[in-house]
Structures are given as C-alpha cells and as structure tokens.
C-alpha cells in the first residue's frame, strides 16, 4: 500500500497558450494543484475558465495549437508533458481515465456497447476478446444496467442519456484507473439522473479506490462529491481549500459571487443572484487581478498587481488582496456572512469536517507567496 499522503498527481505552474488566428490565447496561467490517493478534487469555474484545458493537459490530449509555456504535470513523479506518444497511450484509460460531458455523443454509434467497454481491456491488459467481454459484462452490472446480459450487445442509440453515461463510466473504470477525470459528467443530464450518476460515481470510487478530479461549474454538485475544491477564474486558480472551507468560509470575492448565485432553499422570492459582467478576454488578459473589473470589492492594487495566494488555513488559500494585513476590512454579502457565522459556530463546537485529507502544511500551492506583498 502506498503512502496515503503521497501526491499521485502534481500540477505545477502550468501555463498554456493557444495559438489562434486571432492571436495567442493565454488559457491557463500558472495553475498548480495536487491530487492525493482516494480523494476527490473539484475544479469549479464558469465556462472558459480553463477547467477542460487543464484536464486535457493531464491526459496529454491537448490540441495541436496549444503550447505548454511552462510547468509540469507529474503523475507519480513522471512528467506527463515529456512522455512519448506510446507512453501516453499506455497511461490513458489504464492509469488515468476520463468521462466526458455529453453521453449522447461520446459513444461510438456503430459499435456494440459491450465491445466499447471491452476495448480498453484488450489494449491495456492484452485480454482475449472473450475474457474482455466477460469483464465488460461485470462492469455493466456494476454500473447498474439492468438485463446486462442482453443489453451488452445493444448499440448506444438504444439507451437513454443516463444509461449512456453509466456506460461511459463503465468504459472509464473498466481498467480500474488510479485517477478518474470527470469533465462535467452530469451537465447534460436531467436533475434526477444527475443525482443517480453522482451516487454511482461515489459508490464506484470506494469500490475501486480511485481518485477523482471533478470538473464542474455547478457548486451544488460539488458539495456532495468533493473533498477539496479549487476555484478557477480566467485561467487561474483563485481559491482552494477543503469543501467546508470553500462553502462556509470563502475568502475570494469570486467564490462569494459563485456561492451567491447558487439557489438555496432560502431563495424564495426575487431574482437569482448573478455575477455581473463577463470574464476577461484571454487574448489580452488585464494586468492585476483578472476579476477586478467584476469585483465590487476591488481596490486600486487589484488593477495594478496580481494578488498572490494568502494563507487562510493549512489547507485553504485564496488569491485576493482583501486578505492582505493592510487591506481594509470588508463585509462580504449577507449570505456569505451567514455561511461564515455557521462555520465559526461549527468550528467552536468542533463538528466541522475539514475533509478527510489533512495537509501536512506543505502544499504544492503557492504558499510561499505570503510575504510578497507591500512591494
């Protein structure tokens, strides 16, 4: 058994440009995070914040016009960005697998689903067709397809969306990968099916002890799934911490905005909150904090200098100047304040769950930026 504290995946200072006709898009800027065995890390952010590009980088599936300007993606200490195509093929599907957003289009329409599930086994484990098919049947049962024996020979169009996502999950997990990247796996499904798929993922995570990187824009989904959360904005991580820290003690105004725009049971009347404005153009990212233009709490320094990560706790960091000791105290929106009060109370009572992953204090995030202020 490996050391439970070991980082199986470490992304460091990842910076990625896309060369397009319109110019160079700075899609990912200095992104660092890590993943421990068995945990679920959620990466949250709105469309275009760089979540998917991050996962594509981990899989070694970046588009041709992408350039990794800086940084490393280390899987068990080996840099994925330097792997040969052959090594990448060996890793994909076997060690790191991925589930995509739209189950309606992610299955080959002309291949029986049984064959599609069996395929990774034949490639990676050299199973015979028969043995792979048998294993595929087991997997199909595991993801909850009723009548699996008959349905294994059906084609994708004979299944509903939820069932297809179960099949996609079966494909992803059939080799028992160490890491599962789920890129908005429930976005295309209706709400009742969403819950089923999330439950299934949690159940399977325990059964085959895989780590999950869960990409989503839906904070509601995160609460039930994740151990830790990283919030991305405009190609950068702006805040990260355990799920409780992000939900009950958020520090970054962008996280406040995200949480505020999530409808709760208290949202009875009036309109849903939203974050005004749009994300910045990554062809020409603004200097300073990219969120400044949409941030009602922005200060002068936000427009001049990008904030470093400030430490909130051993596991919780946020990149906002509001955390600087010299910054004026601001009151977050009422709903966030309420959350923080609940959090403080729970902390006092000691009922808070800081997540089952406890940092040793050393993290791969930019913890050493603490005193970078005041220049």
């Amino acid at each position, binding site marked *: 058994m490996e050391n439970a504290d070991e980082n199986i995946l470490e992304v460091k200072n990842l910076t990625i440009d896309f060369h397009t006709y319109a110019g160079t898009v700075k899609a990912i800027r200095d992104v660092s995070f890590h993943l421990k065995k068995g945990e679920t890390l959620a990466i949250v952010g709105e469309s275009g914040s760089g979540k998917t590009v991050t996962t594509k980088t981990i899989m070694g599936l970046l588009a041709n016009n992408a350039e990794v300007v800086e940084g490393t993606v280390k899987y068990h200490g080996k840099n994925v960005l330097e792997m040969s195509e052959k090594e990448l093929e060996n890793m*994909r599907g076997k060690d790191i697998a991925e589930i995509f957003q739209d189950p309606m289009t992610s299955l080959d329409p002309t291949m029986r689903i049984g064959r599609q599930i069996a395929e990774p086994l034949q490639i990676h484990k050299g199973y015979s067709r028969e043995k792979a098919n048998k294993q595929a049947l087991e997997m199909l049962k595991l993801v909850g397809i009723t009548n699996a024996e008959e349905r294994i020979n059906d084609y994708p169009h004979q299944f509903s969306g939820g069932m297809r996502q179960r099949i996609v999950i079966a494909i992803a997990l059939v080799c028992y990968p160490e890491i599962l990247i789920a890129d908005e796996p429930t976005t295309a499904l209706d709400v009742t099916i969403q819950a089923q798929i999330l439950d299934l993922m949690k159940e399977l995570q325990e059964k085959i002890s895989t780590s999950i990187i869960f990409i989503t824009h839906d904070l509601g989904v995160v609460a039930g799934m994740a151990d830790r959360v990283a919030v991305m904005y405009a190609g950068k991580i702006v805040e990260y911490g355990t799920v409780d820290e992000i939900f009950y003690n958020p520090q970054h105004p962008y996280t406040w905005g995200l949480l505020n725009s999530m409808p709760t049971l208290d949202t009875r009347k009036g309109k849903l909150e939203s974050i005004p404005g749009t994300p910045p153009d990554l062809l020409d990212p603004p200097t300073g904090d990219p969120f400044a233009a949409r941030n009602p709490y922005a200060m002068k320094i936000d427009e001049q200098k990008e904030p470093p990560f400030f430490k909130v706790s051993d596991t919780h960091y946020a990149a906002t100047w509001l955390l600087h000791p010299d910054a004026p105290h601001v009151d977050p929106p009422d709903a966030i304040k309420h959350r923080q009060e609940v959090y403080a109370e729970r902390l006092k009572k000691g009922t808070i769950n800081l997540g089952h992953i406890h940092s040793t204090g050393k993290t791969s995030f930019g913890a050493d930026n603490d005193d970078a202020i005041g220049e």
Partner: protein
Amino acid sequence: MAKYLLKRIFYLFLTLFLIASITFFLMKLMPGTPLNNQAKLSPQQIKIIYEHYGLNKPVWQQYISYIVDAAHGNFGLSYQFSDQPVSYLISSRIGPSLQLGAQAIIVGVFFGIIVGSLSAIRKNTWIDGASTFISILGISIPSFVLAILLQYYLGLKLQWFPIADWGGFSYTVLPTLALAASPFAETSRFVRTEMVDVLGSDYIELAKAKGLSRTGIVWHHALRNSLIPLVTVIGPLAAAIMTGSMVVENIFSVPGIGEQFVKSILVNDYPTIMGVTMLYSALLCAILLLTDIVYGIIDPRIRISGNEG
C-alpha cells in the same frame, strides 16, 4: 422488413411506370420522324412503314400497347438495326458497359477511400494538399482528355496495355482507369469531409482517452463511421457509370450501350430510346433500393425492425 420491402418494390414499379409514360410522350413531342430519308419516299411507302411499326395509330393507342408489351418484357423492334428486338440489342451490348462500370467503381471507390482517409488523418499537411489536388484534377479533367492521355502514355509510349478494342481483361484497363477518375475524386472528397467530421467527434476523443493508438482509432472507430454515409453516394454513382459512357466507349471502341443510346436519339429510334431509358431507370431504382437495404444492414441506427430505441 418483408412488408417494407414489398412496399418499396411496389413503389419501384410505380416509378418505372411513370418514367415510361413521361418518356413516351416527351419522345412523341420531339421534332422529326424515324425516317431519315423521308424526302425520297412516296407517301405509299411511308404509310407501309408506319403501319409496320404501328405508328399510324393514335398516340394513346400506341402508348397503351407499348406499356402492355413492356410489362410483358417486349420493348419492340429497333428501327435502325433492321428490326432486331430492343431487348436483344440491349442484352448483347450491356455486358461490356456493366463490366467497365463495375471495375471503374471498384477501383475508384477503393483508392478514393484510401486517399480520402489519409487526407483527413493528415489534415492540413502536404499529404492533404496533394490528395486534394489529385481529386480536383479527377473532377475537372474531362474523361475524354484523360482517356487520350492514357492511350498515349500507357498504350502508345509504354505499350503496357492495348490502346483500344475489346478482347480480354487487358483491354479493359485503360477505359476502366478513364472511367474511374470521377468516382475516385468524388469518393476521396466525400470520405475526407466525413472523416474530418468523425475525427473531431466526442467518441473519437473518448477512444483517445481509452488509450487507443492513432491507427487503432482510425481502424476501429473512424473508418466505419465515415464510410457508412458513402454508401448513399456510391449507389447513384454506380448506376451512372455502369450504364456506360458514350465518350469513353467511343474512344476505346468498346462495344457498349452508351454509344448506341446517343445514336438512337439522333435518328428517333423510339423503341431503342425507350428501352435504354427504362434500363437506366430500372438500374438506378434497383441500386437505390439496394442502397437503402445495405444502409440498414451496416448502420445499426436505422435498422428497420429495430424499434426498441
């Protein structure tokens, strides 16, 4: 499935009936008569000839007797070829046309698939550029120019193949190549477009995420999905080519049906025009029906009996 087939076959005959009717009346509207030396003939002689072929009767009577005869497989006697039955004329000359057409389709489609796939897999490289260039040549060079070039270089200069005439497989090579250019070009363009589409789809991304190699992806997922729509193109293409090309048959002195058809139009040989038109129509209808049946077999999404979805 049987019910569906019966329905389709009924429609096939209905279509053929309509085509026969329309062609019949259109042909009657054409100026001129079947007699190319009318000026020299006395009214008496003309009357005898007209009676012999039933042309003196009212048009609607001619029409009914033609349809009734055609339903019995009798397409009348040719005017120009000294009273030979049209069905005999066609059957004795269709062979070479069918053979050339089939060979051209097989060669053209086969290489079209290879070039089109390569082009899509290596999109925006010199391979893609070169194959696009070849395809455009294939579409834009008229077949008679290509035929003459083939005769000159492969036939005359290199002496690899006979320049013309009909007599064994080696005689079919040059006309086959000349005929294959257009199905080749169309197939390769079509396959390229389809495959570029398929290669950009989510299930190919998933196949990559599974760890399949490039060749594995093309072989197991991309090829089948991009070739299925090709079936709909090949059908009509095959029908057009197998019914013979007048120009190519003329250049290579192939005793095919294409030449005969054009000639019969020029001399108002009504029964031959009708017979060949009906043959073309029947072939096209049959191929379209076959296309639909084959499509149902190779594409699981449109199996006719598969209503479970």
